[in-house]
């Protein structure tokens, strides 16, 4: 009874959710295919064209609309996201490993780490900038911003790994020690291969969070901007469809990233399913 009564509201909710999730992207996608360089955003499209995509890569004759100043910013953001991903994931794995055993004040430390996810980003950015000024440290995307990004993404990586270790059967590690293998080599040869799906998820989290991070970067990046800052900067002048074209491309890049993640995940889930079968039989 209740099931069928809830059915339509739930369907409507899901529909709305999907609409609000994808409609903005759809609009952006459509707008990116208008002709240029004259005229602002227009809807519906009169002439379909790939002009703004060519404009993005400097393949159009010079015009009133300047090329997007994003080449360097893109490289910076990708580099920063990559470094953040590696650092946060390594730290997340190590600290989750430490939390497998209860230690003194482990509860307090846990909440202190997780609190990092809740603190407003603008405050963290501002605070870091003030601290850097106070200490006489110059602000750069690769120094102060990097630190705030790691601090921001580390709790996510930590929580993902904690959940993975929670379900981890430690007797396989003990079996390895018992065969004369040191804990360090056991970690490399047994633990790491088995927690790999979790490591992938932690990496994806850290990368995407860092890649489009705005408030923490705003005050800490110094002169050279990251991609989100650079794009925001162009808004304050005038919005041209080249932004939309770029939005489409960067979203496609994210999808590609997800596809790689999905592929690697499928491979390790195949392995994990075999683990599950093993546990069922017992």
């Amino acid at each position, binding site marked *: 009874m209740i099931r069928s009564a809830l059915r339509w509201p739930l369907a409507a909710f899901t529909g709305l959710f999907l609409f609000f999730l994808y409609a903005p992207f759809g609009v952006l996608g459509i707008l990116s295919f208008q002709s240029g360089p004259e005229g602002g955003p227009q809807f519906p499209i009169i002439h379909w064209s790939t002009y703004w995509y060519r404009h993005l890569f400097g393949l159009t004759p010079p015009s009133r609309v300047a090329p997007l100043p994003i080449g360097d910013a893109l490289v910076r953001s990708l580099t920063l996201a990559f470094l953040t991903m590696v650092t946060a994931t390594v730290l997340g794995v190590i600290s989750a490993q430490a939390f497998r055993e209860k230690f003194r004040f482990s509860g307090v430390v846990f909440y202190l780490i997780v609190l990092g996810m809740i603190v407003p980003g603008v405050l963290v950015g501002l605070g870091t900038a003030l601290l850097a000024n106070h200490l006489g440290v110059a602000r750069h995307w690769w120094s102060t911003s990097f630190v705030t990004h790691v601090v921001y993404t580390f709790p996510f990586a930590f929580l993902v790994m904690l959940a993975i270790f929670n379900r981890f059967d430690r007797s396989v590690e*003990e*079996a*390895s020690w*018992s065969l004369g293998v040191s804990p360090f080599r056991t970690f490399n040869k047994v633990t790491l291969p088995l927690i790999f799906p979790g490591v992938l998820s932690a990496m994806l989290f850290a990368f995407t969070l860092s890649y489009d991070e705005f408030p923490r970067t705003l005050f800490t990046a110094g002169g050279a901007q990251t991609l989100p800052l650079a794009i925001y900067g162009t808004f304050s002048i005038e919005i041209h469809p080249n932004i939309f074209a770029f939005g489409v491309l960067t979203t496609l890049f994210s999808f590609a990233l997800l596809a790689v993640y999905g592929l690697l995940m499928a491979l390790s889930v195949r392995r994990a399913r075999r683990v599950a079968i093993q546990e069922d039989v017992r």
Partner: protein
Amino acid sequence: MTYDLELVQLGKTFPNGTPAVVAFDLRVEKGEFVSFVGPSGCGKTTTLRMIAGFEASTSGDILIRGRNVSDLPPERRPTSTIFQNFALFPHMTVRQNIEYGLRVRGVAAPERKRRVDAMIDRLELGDVADQRAPGLSGGQRQRVALARGLVVEPDILLLDEPLGALDANLRKSIQHQLKQLQRTIGITFVFVTHAQSEALTLSDRVVVMNRGRSEQISDPYELYTRPRSAFVARFIGRNTLLAGSVAGVEDGIATLTTAFGPMRGATNGAVFTSGTAALLSIPSEAFEITAATAAAGPERLRGRVLGRTILGTAVRLRIALPDGQEILIETHRDQFTGEWSEGEVMLTWQPPDATVVAAD
């Protein structure tokens, strides 16, 4: 002489205050098959894990072949452990699982292959050598775990309820294979189980544990026929216990004053002073059943038959004693006469077949 394994006053109290193992003494000779048996939570696994080095002891010492290993980490102890869930490496094939210990230790490829092949042959794993562990049956996984543990040639193999995960039919046949394997390899096995039948069938000696202490260490026959404490009398075999106080001891036979009159049983070397509270433990097999008309006297208990079950050549009777205790007695079908099938019977036994233990 040096023992393969020596536990000296071994103890473990967990940080939360649980005394899991208390003053445990044990000496195991090379090639012995020793079992720890006891109810759940009595400290069997904790003792085994201390021997393996997974758990630190809080008192006492562990010696393996005369060397004190108490402070060595697990990877530096000459022991291998077989876990209840087998703990195979799911990301490796059967051969890789078995090879793992030798490979990481840097054993050269030709020797490694020779030893792994020999182990695969011995445990009949040839057909599945290239399969991954999770696809295997319970029995196969158990054999892989054994092969993986034995191929590194440990001094002692530690097994924590390795048959617990298998179904009942498989367990019987694997018990036999396990004993056979231990005989041919000749290394010491320390085997943990909560099933007394497993311990009695497999072991050269059995340690009965209760609340972190070892209650009795005996060979299976002695354990079964001569319990040394009330706990063991209740836990092992099927004994009827009668409470009383010691009236006197003569030639190793004590007389107890019980609610049913004087009853006698062997003291089995224990010393009892007159007046101490004690229990008479009578094994189910020691009872003889006669007609209720037989005269009452020492070693005679009146009983009332409540029901019977025919088990092929034997008949199992459920009998109520006058104090309300219900006991099960199996008797040969030839000795079973219809007249006991309902109503009163008389139970008798030979005093040396019963054992007197201190009351708890």
